[in-house]
């Protein structure tokens, strides 16, 4: 079963600070979504609202058509995993699994056991005695084994070393293909995990500045490199995300589709057209321009 998520004019204030500013989007569900944003862009705040950890200041959130906050039917279907976790330090790994198993309706015990073995999690150890990587692995185990129709990982895997992270990506994908559900992953390790996202949302200073299919987004960026006057002529009227100049050679990152004529012109003038990686697009789209905007 998959649940759609609808967010309309969402705002969240912490006192006088506005963390989420008029955010609206619709997720059809049953896909892997990437939520990208710099530190402090409002990712965790947004995800906390989806998971009913907080209530929004204003605006509407609907998961499966219902408001999630304090809605038992929805809350038990939304599993939100953060790196630090919310269990007390004095609880043991086994206790965390026990509690999770008792709370999540779709909990898959065999799957949990397999993940515990994969990550070599010590059942008897207390959380305070676990390394950062182990804590992350425990969070990932709970999230995956919860089999919650909406499973959210908020940078939950950052504490793991590269081999464990890749094992997680593989598990996530495998599990997603076997039992499709909605995954939302927030991250800044875009290079590693970007290929898993079907859609990408980018938050910047509390605003949702982008929500696109990953492939479409990737194809919309280009770098144009060549003699500066030609490049300037070519990029007129395009959204310029960034510029670099080396002598008379200029390299401009643009966002948007190049027309056939522009491509022809570029080819004729010996201009180099290059792709832009998701990571680069993200960096350009969320770059501070020094004027606080």
């Amino acid at each position, binding site marked *: 079963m998959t649940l759609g998520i609808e967010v309309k004019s969402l705002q969240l204030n912490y006192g006088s600070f506005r963390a989420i500013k008029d955010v609206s989007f619709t997720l059809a569900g049953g896909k892997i979504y990437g939520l990208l944003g710099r530190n402090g862009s409002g990712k965790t705040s947004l995800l906390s609202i989806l998971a009913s950890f907080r209530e929004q200041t204003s605006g509407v959130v609907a998961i499966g058509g219902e408001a999630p906050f304090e809605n038992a039917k929805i809350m038990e279907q939304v599993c939100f995993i953060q790196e630090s976790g919310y269990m007390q330090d004095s609880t043991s790994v086994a206790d965390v699994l026990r509690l999770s198993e008792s709370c999540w309706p779709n909990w898959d015990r065999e799957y949990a056991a397999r993940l515990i073995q994969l990550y070599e999690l010590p059942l008897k150890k207390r959380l305070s005695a676990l390394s950062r990587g182990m804590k992350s692995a425990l969070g990932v185990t709970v999230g995956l084994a919860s089999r919650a129709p909406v499973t959210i990982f908020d940078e939950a895997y950052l504490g793991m070393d590269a081999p464990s992270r890749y094992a997680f*990506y593989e598990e996530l994908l495998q599990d*997603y293909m076997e039992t499709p559900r909605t995954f939302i992953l927030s991250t800044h390790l875009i290079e590693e995990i970007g290929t898993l996202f*079907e859609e990408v949302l980018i938050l910047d200073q509390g605003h949702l500045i982008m929500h696109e299919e990953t492939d479409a987004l990737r194809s919309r960026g280009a770098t144009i490199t060549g003699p500066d006057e030609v490049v300037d002529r070519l990029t007129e009227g395009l959204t310029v995300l960034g510029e670099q100049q080396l002598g008379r050679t200029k390299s401009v990152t643009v966002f948007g589709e190049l027309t056939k004529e522009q491509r022809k012109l570029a080819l004729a003038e010996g201009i180099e057209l290059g792709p832009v990686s998701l990571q680069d697009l993200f960096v350009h789209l969320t770059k501070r321009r020094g004027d606080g905007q």
Partner: protein
Amino acid sequence: MFDDRSPIYQQIADKIKDDIVRGLLQEDEQVMSTNQFAAFYRINPATAAKGFHLLTEEGILYKKRGIGMFVSGEARQSLIQNRRERFFEEVVDQMLAEADKIGVPISEIIGRIEKANRRNEA
């Protein structure tokens, strides 16, 4: 794995086409499923499916309901035909443009090709 130069689904389509041209995939042979592709390359299955969609639209693959995707009968022929056309446009024309830029005369190029040809025949 993926070089980010073109959309991933395009690269997947190209990879399958290449396998067909090289004879690794025969006519009416079943192609790996989108899920297998996704797991192998660690990409979203929807992305892999897009690549497959591209190939069915071009008539290179066909779908058997409930079983999977198969290589069309005339896939290899048409792919080779297509590549031949592109060969002159993309390889020969570009080579000539480059030669022109650095002042290599065409006669020298022809000489080189004939030499290679003789070596191959020997």
